[in-house]
């Protein structure tokens, strides 16, 4: 079975500081990996995804993530956060190992930005 772990429930960073959100996954083959963001009162929006090729993936809003197979990780990074980045971030894993694999979402990391 596939699974995703986001070890940090809540992270607080200062505006302008760098950010790294952790994601570890379990999957039987090369997975499809995703980061979605949920702003308060909104649905989820895709930030970026990985399924092959370059292990450093660029996304929207200045975010990037790096796939590390040896560590089963797909951490999300941003060099300098803005107040508008305050939101909840979800990592997800899926694939086609068993056919129509559905996505499994992590429990989310809430990001707070302080001035």
């Amino acid at each position, binding site marked *: 079975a596939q699974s*995703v772990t986001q070890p940090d*429930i809540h992270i607080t960073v200062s505006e302008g500081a760098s950010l790294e959100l952790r994601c570890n996954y379990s999957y039987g083959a090369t997975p*499809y990996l995703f980061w979605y963001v949920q702003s308060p*009162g*909104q*649905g*989820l*929006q*895709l930030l970026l*995804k990985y*399924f092959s090729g370059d292990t450093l993936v660029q996304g929207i809003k200045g975010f990037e993530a790096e796939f590390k197979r040896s560590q089963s990780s797909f951490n999300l990074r941003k060099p300098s956060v803005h107040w508008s980045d305050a939101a909840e971030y*979800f990592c997800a894993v*899926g*694939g*086609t190992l068993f056919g*129509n*694999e*559905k*996505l499994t*979402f*992590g*429990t*989310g990391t809430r990001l707070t930005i302080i001035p």
Partner: protein
Amino acid sequence: NAGVTQTPKFRILKIGQSMTLQCTQDMNHNYMYWYRQDPGMGLKLIYYSVGAGITDKGEVPNGYNVSRSTTEDFPLRLELAAPSQTSVYFCASSLGLPTDTQYFGPGTRLTVL
């Protein structure tokens, strides 16, 4: 394009009542999904559909029913509402496989008292 729209935005139900959550997408996507989001639990898949007339259970289907008579619409039916169904419900769609980008609606916040 409006994307994925959901109605209502908020609803309070009494135990035992029933209701339908509406979901419509205008992107001609084949796949549609219903998720529920509970605090600290992430998103759990309730039901999904791969096309009109085809639906299947997700991880937490008990207490819910779905139908998909058109490509655009994917309503979720709650029969005999229970407090355990208090949650935020999200509808989503993707062009093809679930590993394609999923587009989410704004959600319906449901409280069962």
